[in-house]
């Protein structure tokens, strides 16, 4: 078998042409590629010469380049807003040296089951910027759900609106260096004494992610004082495949417990 070939293009157009070839994929510098089977790959396209490592905010819209690392994104977003769910999630992902390599684009494209990125991105209603067969801006949730959208596409950036959410992020691990069995993203926007909008999403479950629609419906528009976190958390219906050391029922119970704690924290309730 021929040795793996590397390409070092300078433009997005060159990358798009290269990844249209059989077995050639982009590499932004992250670590996911080493977890796959390199022997199945014919060519790797190094993205480091492209200007895809950036972060910027225009108005309330934040944009991150595809090759921006988790570490840089977490530092930037945390500086804008300490409550930013992405800053919390990315800052707790993996470890310091790995966060210096894992990229926003690579992690979106691969969406590993232990991803700390995808829950917050989907909950925030983020969009992914693609070049190639399907150029343009698309909701991240569409990119995840529609295989055809991903085929032959290069992620060049991600963007989302920096709304005034208070947030709760939880990753279920046995030790800090574990991949999470699931992640939980809760976003709450308050107006006066009521919840204007609530978003809840779990990853790591069957279907890769699940929006906790019943929790969202139970909380949106209600008075903060009337919220019963335990009661609402019962509505968190998430299915899991059996995982090592953890049964689906146990994981579902853990989600319910964390949803309860998250709601209590977000509505300012002492537990």
């Amino acid at each position, binding site marked *: 078998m021929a*040795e*793996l*070939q*590397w390409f070092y293009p300078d433009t997005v157009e060159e990358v798009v042409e290269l990844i249209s070839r059989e077995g050639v994929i982009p*590499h932004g*510098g992250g*670590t996911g*590629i*080493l977890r796959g089977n*390199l022997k199945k790959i014919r060519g*790797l396209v*190094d993205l*480091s010469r492209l200007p895809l490592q950036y972060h910027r905010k225009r108005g309330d819209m934040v944009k991150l380049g595809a090759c921006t690392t988790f*570490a840089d994104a977490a530092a930037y977003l945390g500086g804008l807003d300490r409550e930013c769910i992405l800053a919390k999630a990315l800052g707790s992902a*993996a*470890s*310091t*040296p*790995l966060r*210096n*390599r894992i990229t926003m684009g690579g992690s979106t494209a691969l969406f590993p089951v232990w991803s700390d990125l995808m829950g917050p991105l989907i909950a925030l209603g983020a969009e992914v910027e693609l070049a190639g067969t399907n150029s343009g801006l698309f909701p991240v949730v569409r990119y995840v759900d529609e295989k055809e959208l991903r085929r032959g596409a290069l992620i060049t950036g991600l963007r989302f609106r920096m709304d005034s959410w208070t947030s709760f992020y939880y990753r279920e691990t046995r030790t*800090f*260096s574990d991949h999470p069995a699931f992640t939980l993203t809760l976003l709450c926007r308050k107006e006066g004494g009521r919840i204007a909008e609530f978003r809840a999403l779990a990853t790591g479950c069957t279907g890769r992610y699940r929006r906790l629609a019943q929790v969202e419906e139970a909380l949106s528009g209600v008075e903060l004082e009337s919220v019963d976190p335990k009661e609402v958390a019962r509505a968190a219906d998430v299915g899991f495949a059996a995982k090592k050391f953890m049964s689906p029922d146990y994981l579902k119970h853990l989600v319910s417990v964390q949803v309860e704690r998250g709601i209590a924290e977000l509505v300012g309730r002492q537990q």
Partner: protein
Amino acid sequence: MKGAFNVNGVSVEASFHADETLLNVLRSHGHTEVKEGCDEGQCGACVVLLDGKLVNSCQVLAATARDAEIVTIRALGNLHEPHPIQRAFVDAGAVQCGFCTPGMVLAAYSLIRRNSDPSEMEIREALDGNLCRCTGYVKIVEAVDLAARRMRGHA
């Protein structure tokens, strides 16, 4: 394939396979101070500074690091002229089997460059990618704190 790497200020011409990691290339060119531990990016024994950023060299494909500035523990100090962080590790009793020590010291160096007065929590977070198989974490955290204080001229 071929490439040049700037390791500790010295240009190194290297031949390597297209799927080879930076860790393998460094070790096969005499940089055995970069330790091979888990080979999965979990233990931190192989960390180096790549263009100023702490990374697991086992998780970097060498082909992406051509022409990059790489710093290994060897650039910091040696037995006769140890870096203040290395001296602090000895003085605090933070070295047991020593396998994790190069990675721990580099992670501490990376932290103190950014933050000269880290809290205990900040030290623990900065070392979150480095495992000590002897479990000597308390002394290691004390050593980093001691090194930071000495480098600020407070100890």
